[in-house]
């Protein structure tokens, strides 16, 4: 679009405006997402920690413990929700951190590519683990 406007000498205001609006609506959506997912994660994450460290001694959370818990599909859904919401909330937080502290745009793009790939890979790996596990 910027090339077109340079060639035709047309005002470049319209495309910039629309891309800005798109960016703003994404950030607004991201802002709501952090608050809503955060409120859900408050219960999911603290609940998970309470089960594995407070209500049970961590020494007892062996493979048998997981087998008993994952017999019930509701616990698999609970764990998968914690996995996906946690990773997405955490990834968006890492995005803020990278935007704020990595000033070189080349380095920022590279770091983001690595962070997004690793997180996506681990999301798929974790999802596969929760779905395919058989005691």
């Amino acid at each position, binding site marked *: 679009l910027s090339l077109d406007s340079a060639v035709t000498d047309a005002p470049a205001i319209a495309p910039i405006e629309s891309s800005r609006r798109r960016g703003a609506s994404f950030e607004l959506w991201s802002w709501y997402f952090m608050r809503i997912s955060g409120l859900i994660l408050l219960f999911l994450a603290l609940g998970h920690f309470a089960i594995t460290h407070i209500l049970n001694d961590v020494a007892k959370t062996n*493979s048998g413990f997981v087998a008993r818990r994952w017999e019930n599909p509701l616990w698999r859904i609970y764990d998968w929700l914690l996995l996906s919401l946690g990773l997405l909330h955490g990834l968006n937080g890492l995005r803020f951190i990278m935007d704020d502290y990595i000033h070189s745009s080349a380095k920022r793009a590279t770091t983001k590519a690595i962070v997004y790939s690793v997180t996506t890979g681990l999301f798929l790996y974790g999802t596969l683990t929760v779905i395919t596990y058989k005691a």
Partner: protein
Amino acid sequence: VKASVYRGKSGQWAFIAHRISGFLVMMFLLMHVVDVSTIHNPRLYNEIHELYSRFLLRLFEVGLLAALVFHSLNGWRIVMVDFFPGVIKREKEVLTAVLFLTALATIIGGYIIIKPEFIH
């Protein structure tokens, strides 16, 4: 080149602590997906998870609890300030409550997490 540094008050420290605790919990989560996924090989899973009950790792878990509780409660404080305009006037008291509850949960939870180390 001398950069100017913004010297905020309690809210700025809450912001910094929120970032650091969130970053640490995310790093743990990324690692935790890998260690849980060894469940397909129960013997390997048990070997790795035996580490979680070592004293040093129990201390780490108390730290994880502190980061998790602080990030949760401070996040809840942020939501309160954003959606209920009246809360901003009592912003400092709310932050004090967040810190107090974080300390309380960490002390009680930490006691429960560390205790098995001393009663074998």
